[in-house]
């Protein structure tokens, strides 16, 4: 077909009744939708970059925020997000394989690969739920000062680039323990003389300055929501919830679309129609969801 279309002149091609783009109306519209959606996500991510550059000194370290792995607990940055990335990439591969099988009208292969794709989407969504749960629940807890800034409790861990590196310590109790009140937290702080205080611009104050810092204290913050965030600036939590939430919503929609197409494949709708083009359109959307995640992964977790 391609050779045929290329043989006719450009003028005839664009005069109507043909497909100058070489794709059907539905597929072209899917592309236009993806284009607009790509611009939307670019807007979100550059807005994130804007805030991050603006508050470069006080932005939370991604490594400290997302370090949980199921069954292993905290302290393993990147591992679980990397797993999520692989799941999404792999589900993209099974989607291409399903589309390829659809072109060859191999119904059973389409069923298999599309099922794996839906499974991958499900695993990704549950992983994201789990990650949100840990982000919202919080970890080591922090002290919020009257100016709204966050103070972390840290201990020196080692040296790097000629300067000391610190790790956060929890003074608020593990697991489901109730969040302590300010006086309780202060007592816990005084009982641990090795603990130092890391303030807004990441500089660390010695334990002896504790009284001065606690005099400015407003509340004990644990976990993150749209208003307060134990990891640092609340803006970070806002962007995290909004961007990964919007992406998760896309994944959810993608799984839903895949399910509808899956049912139609089982019912033989596309066999009767003579082609699996609907699968290609939904496939484009699914790859786009993977594409967005590639960028979210880089800007939220790596950089």
């Amino acid at each position: 077909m391609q050779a045929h279309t290329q043989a006719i002149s450009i003028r005839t091609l664009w005069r109507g009744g043909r497909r100058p783009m070489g794709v059907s109306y539905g597929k072209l519209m899917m592309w236009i939708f993806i284009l607009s959606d790509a611009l939307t996500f670019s807007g979100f991510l550059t807005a994130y970059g804007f805030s991050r550059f603006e508050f470069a000194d006080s932005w939370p370290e991604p490594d400290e925020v997302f370090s949980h792995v199921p069954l292993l607990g905290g302290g393993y940055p990147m591992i679980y997000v990397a797993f999520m990335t692989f799941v999404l990439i792999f589900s993209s591969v099974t989607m291409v394989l399903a589309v390829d099988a659809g072109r060859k009208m191999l119904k059973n292969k389409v069923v298999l690969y599309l099922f794996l794709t839906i499974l991958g989407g499900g695993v990704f969504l549950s992983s994201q739920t789990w990650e949100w749960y840990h982000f919202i629940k919080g970890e080591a807890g922090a002290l919020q000062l009257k100016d709204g800034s966050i103070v972390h409790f840290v201990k020196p861990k080692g040296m790097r680039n000629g300067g000391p590196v610190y790790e956060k310590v929890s003074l608020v109790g593990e697991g489901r323990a109730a969040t302590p009140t300010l006086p309780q937290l202060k007592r816990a702080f005084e009982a641990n003389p090795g603990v130092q205080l890391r303030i807004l611009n990441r500089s660390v104050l010695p334990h002896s300055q504790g009284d001065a810092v606690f005099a400015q204290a407003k509340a004990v913050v644990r976990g993150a929501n749209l208003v307060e965030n134990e990891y640092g600036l609340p803006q970070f939590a806002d962007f995290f919830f909004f961007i990964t939430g919007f992406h998760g919503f896309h994944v959810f929609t993608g799984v839903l679309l895949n399910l509808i197409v899956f049912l139609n494949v089982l019912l033989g709708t596309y066999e009767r129609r003579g082609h699996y083009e609907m699968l290609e359109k939904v496939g484009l959307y699914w790859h786009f969801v993977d594409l967005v995640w590639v960028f979210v992964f880089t800007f939220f977790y790596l950089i």
Partner: protein
Amino acid sequence: MADQTITAIWKVFITLSIVTLAEVLLGIYRPEFLELKLFSGLISLLNLTFILLTLYKAYCIVWFFMHVKYEYSNLRLTITLPLYILLPYLIFILLVESSHVREILGL
């Protein structure tokens, strides 16, 4: 099974996996020599590496998985030109403005 399309799909998958693995390893170990700041402190070598690898992954997904490489140039340009024009502009404006806001607020 020696289907060319399927071989190509798995090749792209392996490429994407290797790049992701490299990103993850760099993200975990953060080698000190990559923390060198470039362009008067705007970005570190490590972050620049992450961004370039990400763009490469995006290219693989869009060109091979989304099949753009094999579409007519009409369609290819309809999809990519707006992004090529608008995105650098958006990124430039927002990042320049953010350092400006930062200076004004004295952060």
